[in-house]
């Protein structure tokens, strides 16, 4: 066995350039895979975290039936007497913060241009405790109950050519379907870092929203934060046990971000194809290298057989050579890919150019931070070695099944 290892190891350096090329293709393949996976996982986590921290919280409470139609922001499924509900929610130890809201479809106009937008009536204080909205004001002031004022995304304001203090008109339908309008003043401009909110939402005091929508003492949702995202499922289960599911739809962030998750699972199919291509690349290069070795060294195979090498020894020798190449390539590729991914985890990758080219509403900031899991790095080395070994099997087998006399006749 030691003899085999020695032979295999030295044979790698025999055709140095070819081994180097094979080694490079393996390490680049593995390194790229690690970086791609790191960025993808990072993107996914980051955008979900952003969605959670700016829009959906850890869990939401709706009136029963709401979630079925949530995309249309219906006002038919409302929670009335919500003060008591929010108070009760806040007594639960696992609930840290909660904020009630009305989300409604609206049109915002300055008399010339108009924009379809989502209105969000918020309890100014609780919204700030829950989503820290006041901290996200980039110009002007936050809103207070009773004021007929709104907060607008800075991008939207720029689009309209509006500044803090300028008037706007909200047009919406009341709960009963009647068209209603309200003149408001822009109190402040916000930027929460989630394009979905920044480009598509405006905020106004809850009592004003209730008034114009004829929803006295009603809301459409309570958004709450528990201890952590990981505990959200348990929280959801607990809340569904505690509250009447005939009255409430209670879901965690996992449910509310399902469209996003679906998007990522589609994307991960795409990555699987990339993987496959990379793996085929690695595999082809190893197979090619090993086949060439076997043909070039045919007479040597015959010599080894004449010395008493069994077929199995020949097979092991070439498989080991492939395995060594895979191991070197895998380790180096993992180190380099891991280092780059780690850099991208700390410093991020600037993706402004992408955002400007059609991903405006993608819920992610202008920087992607990759994720890296040290345990999975080990797994990548393993993949490198196994692909290399598997790809070396066929060439090795070709060498091993040669007849000694035939092999010795080779020039």
């Amino acid at each position, binding site marked *: 066995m030691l003899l085999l290892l020695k032979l295999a190891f030295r044979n790698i350096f*025999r055709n140095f350039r070819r081994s180097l090329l094979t080694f490079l293709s393996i390490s680049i393949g593995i390194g790229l895979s690690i970086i791609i996976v790191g960025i993808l996982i990072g993107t996914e986590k980051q955008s979900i975290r952003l969605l959670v921290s700016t829009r959906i919280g850890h869990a939401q409470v709706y009136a029963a039936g709401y979630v079925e139609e949530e995309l249309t922001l219906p006002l038919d499924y409302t929670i009335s007497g919500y003060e008591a509900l929010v108070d009760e929610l806040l007594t639960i130890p696992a609930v840290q913060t909660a904020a009630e809201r009305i989300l409604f479809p609206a049109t915002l106009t300055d008399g010339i241009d108009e924009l379809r937008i989502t209105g969000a009536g918020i309890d100014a204080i609780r919204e700030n405790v829950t989503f820290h909205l006041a901290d996200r004001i980039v110009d002007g002031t936050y809103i207070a109950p009773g004021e007929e004022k709104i907060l607008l995304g800075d991008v939207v304001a720029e689009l309209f050519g509006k500044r803090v203090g300028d008037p706007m008109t909200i047009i919406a339908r009341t709960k009963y379907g009647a068209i209603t309008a309200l003149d408001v003043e822009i109190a402040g401009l916000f930027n929460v870092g989630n394009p979905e909110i920044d480009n598509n939402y405006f905020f106004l005091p809850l009592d004003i929203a209730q008034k114009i929508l004829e929803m006295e003492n009603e809301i459409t949702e309570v958004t709450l934060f528990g201890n952590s995202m990981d505990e959200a499922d348990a929280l959801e289960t607990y809340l569904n046990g505690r509250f009447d599911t005939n009255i409430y739809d209670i879901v965690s962030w996992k449910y509310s971000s399902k469209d996003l998750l679906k998007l990522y699972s589609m994307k991960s199919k795409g990555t699987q194809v990339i993987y496959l291509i990379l793996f085929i690349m690695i595999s082809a290069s190893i197979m090619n290298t090993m086949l060439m070795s076997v043909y070039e060294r045919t007479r040597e195979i015959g010599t080894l057989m004449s010395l*008493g090498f069994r077929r199995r020894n020949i097979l092991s020798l070439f498989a080991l050579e492939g395995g060594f190449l895979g191991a070197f390539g895998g380790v180096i590729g993992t180190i380099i890919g891991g280092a780059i991914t780690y850099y991208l985890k700390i410093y991020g990758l600037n993706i402004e150019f992408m955002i400007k080219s059609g991903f405006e509403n993608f819920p992610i900031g202008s920087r992607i931070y990759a994720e890296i899991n040290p345990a999975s790095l080990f797994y990548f080395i393993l993949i490198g070695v196994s692909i290399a070994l598997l790809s070396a099997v066929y060439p090795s087998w070709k060498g091993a099944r040669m007849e000694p006399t035939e092999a010795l006749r080779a020039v």
Partner: protein
Amino acid sequence: MAEGIFLILKNYELIMEIIRLEKVEKIYRSGKTEQKALEGIDLSITTGEFISIAGPSGSGKTTLLNLIGCLDKPTAGEVIVDEVRVKNLDHNQLADLRSQKIGFIFQTFNLIPVLTAYENVEFPLLLRHNTNAEERNKMITGIFAEVGLAEYMHRRPTELSGGQQQRVAVVRALIKKPKLILADEPTANLDSGTGKAILQIMKELNKKNNISFVFSTHDRMVMDFASRLIILKDGKIIKDINQDNSRKN
């Protein structure tokens, strides 16, 4: 070390048969064409013989050596190596038989290029697992000194001349004390002086260790070296001459 072998083998005064071929026939088939390479070969080789196989090109010399060396099996007839019938052995058993009983020397030297001269010689010993590092070291350095290669021991084959490589190959074949060493045209790639030197070494080792040598050749001078000359023609043995009068049967 060499004395050691000599002493052990001295106790073996008996002349034993190590190879017997009975009505051996070898036919190469490729597709529809058949090529009869050997036909009706009966042959017995005993310990300590120094045999040359001669004959025109295509007469079957290599084929015969391959059969004797268990690198191949006959189409018909029996090859018996040290009382073992080769016919019934599988690939692994043949490999083990070669490892234990037979050494090979090739026209093209065939040293393993990634191993040093020393490691090439060590190789057959490692395959047999019956020596420790210290024993191996003693054996190998001793034999390198004997054939005058002590200072080249740690060179790779590419750093040696053809004659030096062939001497290493002879040592590699010999080191495991096989019953028989086969050499297919061992001097064909060497100039006549170097070839003669190699033959001299082989002959010395043959005498000292009582190991049988069988080599094929085209060269008249080389044939004269042998104590027994077998001449092949068209796959048949046409002459089997004892050339060594001093030698008892």
